[in-house]
């Protein structure tokens, strides 16, 4: 029996071998009223037929900001009969000037039964040629991974926060990428999640006077929501990596580092209800920096204490941690994420 899905949201059902032709017809019927736009191939892999409706909604939102050819892949292993179905659709939005509809194509695939090894071929044969391929892999990576998947992927997006065993997942992923000799860029939404707090912290040290705090740093305390320990570890890994700290030992929630000058610095992670990262506080003997997220606001309240009882307050944007926002940040960001890899190296040793 086939999985039940809301195929209306997915658009027109098409035969797998006729997708290109049907897309062409779709645009010909449009008669030039809309402009088809695409900057990247954005593939989304989710498990279960149910993921397809939610992802279609998400893609509708994403295409408003970022023109792409969306390739939605749903995998439902339960049905005993192997079957692959496809649909095409277009997400159209008025341009900023309001005069022209800008449309992005969505091609959806539902792989049912024992069909997972066909995903790479079908995905790769429906790309918009010569444009980069971003693959958002939702959930856990299966073992073994089809290494062929990475052959054409430029950016692999995932969320390590959702993994049951991040250490094993990172090891599995890295080994598979090494085997495939892919040069893809790892994009962890869990890292993106801490972008604004990292920016807020870094920004405070644009002032040369505040740098003394880092040289004399004694403690770092991070408050994170239960289930977001990896987010906090990546933040800790970032701070440690940027300050060139060496891990000495881990005792429960306290991580002990040593600075290049030989100073001991204790990082403490506190699970607390609230935002993924609700507070990060850096303290030295004479000064401190606290970045705290409003419980229901969109800003970080930043408080800097400097010697001589000087206190400064700042309000900085905290962004949104919705999945769509994180994805847009990641798609619109770019770069090779060298800082992430450095932070990840430290975070992995703490997992």
């Amino acid at each position: 029996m086939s999985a039940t899905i809301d195929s209306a949201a997915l658009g027109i059902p098409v035969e797998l071998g006729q997708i290109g032709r049907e897309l062409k017809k779709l645009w010909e019927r449009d008669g030039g009223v809309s402009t088809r736009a695409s900057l990247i191939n954005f593939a989304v892999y989710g498990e279960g037929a149910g993921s397809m409706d939610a992802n279609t909604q998400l893609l509708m939102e994403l295409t408003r900001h970022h023109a792409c050819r969306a390739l939605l892949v749903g995998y439902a292993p339960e049905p005993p009969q192997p079957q692959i179905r496809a649909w095409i659709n277009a997400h159209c939005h008025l341009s900023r000037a309001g005069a022209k509809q800008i449309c992005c194509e969505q091609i959806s695939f539902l792989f049912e039964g024992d069909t997972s090894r066909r995903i790479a071929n079908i995905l790769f044969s429906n790309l918009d040629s010569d444009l980069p391929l971003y693959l958002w892999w939702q959930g856990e990576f299966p073992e073994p991974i089809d290494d062929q998947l990475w052959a054409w992927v430029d950016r692999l997006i995932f969320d390590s926060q959702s993994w049951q065993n991040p250490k094993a997942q990172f090891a599995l992923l890295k080994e598979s990428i090494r085997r495939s000799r892919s040069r893809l860029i790892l994009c962890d939404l869990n890292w993106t999640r801490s972008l604004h707090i990292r920016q807020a912290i870094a920004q405070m040290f644009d002032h040369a006077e505040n740098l003394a705090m880092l040289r004399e740093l004694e403690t770092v305390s991070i408050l994170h929501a239960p289930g977001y320990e990896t987010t906090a570890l990546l933040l800790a890994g970032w701070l440690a990596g940027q300050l060139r700290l060496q891990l000495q030992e881990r005792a429960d929630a306290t991580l002990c580092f040593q600075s290049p000058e030989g100073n001991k610095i204790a990082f403490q992670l506190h699970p607390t209800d609230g935002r993924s990262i609700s507070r990060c506080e850096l303290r030295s003997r004479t000064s401190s920096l606290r970045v705290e997220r409003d419980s229901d606001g969109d800003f970080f309240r930043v408080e800097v204490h400097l010697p001589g009882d000087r206190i400064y307050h700042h309000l900085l944007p905290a962004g949104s941690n919705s999945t769509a926002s994180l994805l847009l940040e990641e798609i619109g960001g770019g770069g090779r994420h060298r800082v992430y890899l450095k932070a990840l190296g430290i975070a992995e040793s703490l997992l």
Partner: protein
Amino acid sequence: MPQPCTVVIFGASGDLTYRKLIPALYNIAADGDLPAALSVVGFARREKTDEGFRQELREAVGKFSRQGLNAELWESFEDRIFYHRSEFSDLEGYQRLAERLEELDQDRNTQGNRLFYLSVAPSEFGGILEKLAAVGLNKAKEGSWARVIVEKPFGTDLPSAESLNQVVNDVFREKDTYRIDHYLGKETAQNIMVLRFANSIFEPLWNHRYIDHIQITAAEPLGVEARGPYYESSGALRDMVQNHLLQLLCLVAMEPPTDLTADSVRDEKVKVVRALRAMTPEDVAHDVVRGQYAAGSINGKEVLAYRAEDRVDPQSMTETYVALKVHVDNWRWADVPFYVRVGKRLPKGGTEIAIQFKNAPGVLFNKDTSAVGPNVLVIRIQPDEGISLRIQAKRPGASLRVEPVKMDFHYGTSFGKASPEAYERLLLDAMSGDATLFARRDEVEGAWKFIDLIEQAWHQNPKPPALCPYPAGSWGPPEADALLERDGRAWRRM
């Protein structure tokens, strides 16, 4: 508008007549470009009446014509179609054909102009041409013309091509011989010259100074279908590279002709063929990859391995995939490799030429631009004929982030009308006496000379290069990827 004439199709009961030739003539008529006095005579062995033949063709046009079937137009069109039953070897049949053509000249005012279309196996060419000559149909009356169109394959190697050409040229002069390569009739193939020579922005860059390399790809998801026996004797190299892909390569690589006459254009193409660097057996082992599809899946469906296909040798060594690195040894293309690949059972169908330019110096942006990729000009021959150009652009925002964007031109949408089928253009040209889009004898023989060296390295070598398997539905064997990887390049994504 071409002159009135009679088109005689030998092998009229074959697939090509139903799928391509008659739909093409019908579409030309629908576009108003067919002379009113044109007649068509189908020559074949099977017993059939004019009426029966017309009825079959009506169904075929309804199915294969790009403009569908208009009943009113068909009624006027079918009056011009006749069927002539005869064995190819029966001289009497040709005598009757000559009489019938005379009658048509009188009845339909076709003015003694004849276009003979040999839609038969090359082994039949000699017999048919000999009989045509015997009854004098190869010679036109004063003020009229007689031409012959020959379908590929033009031989299986250089000696057989020379022999075949001799057979044809013994009966028809070279200027009246039209060797059809339907790729040349495609709108985008014709547009290559326009793109290069009617736009001032491309030609100055069209050389080794600015072009890193060129890729020509002809991919198809289909297997050999019912053509097992034919394919066993040809393989991908002979079936596709010797003719279609080398023709495209010539159009991309040639120098500007002095004018657009057939011989001026073909002279320049021949120069490219002559400049192809001949391959030694060592070059073949190093620069050519041959593959054969194993079982796999296409569009989600399991498909058989080549060796398990109908009427294919289970131990077959025939290649269904070829990738090769070709050098054109002249000033323009010094050190610019042309990577050519063709394959069956690949995940996606399409024929494309990609001109990959050299990377811009990245120093200004303090980064390696190769990370985002070079400029690529893609000429899509089929399907969805068109041209795209990939350029780098700054993403809006405070930071300087460079991203590739693609400017795309689609024939279908830009000109608001579908491109004519290749056969429409080629038949019209042959009727009009324009041989520009047809292969000349020296082009064909030059291409065979180049291809034969590869075939010999494969089949007459005590240690031939391996035949590399690839799963159906993949983009070919890993060895083909390695061919480019070792040059620091990669096949582009189609």
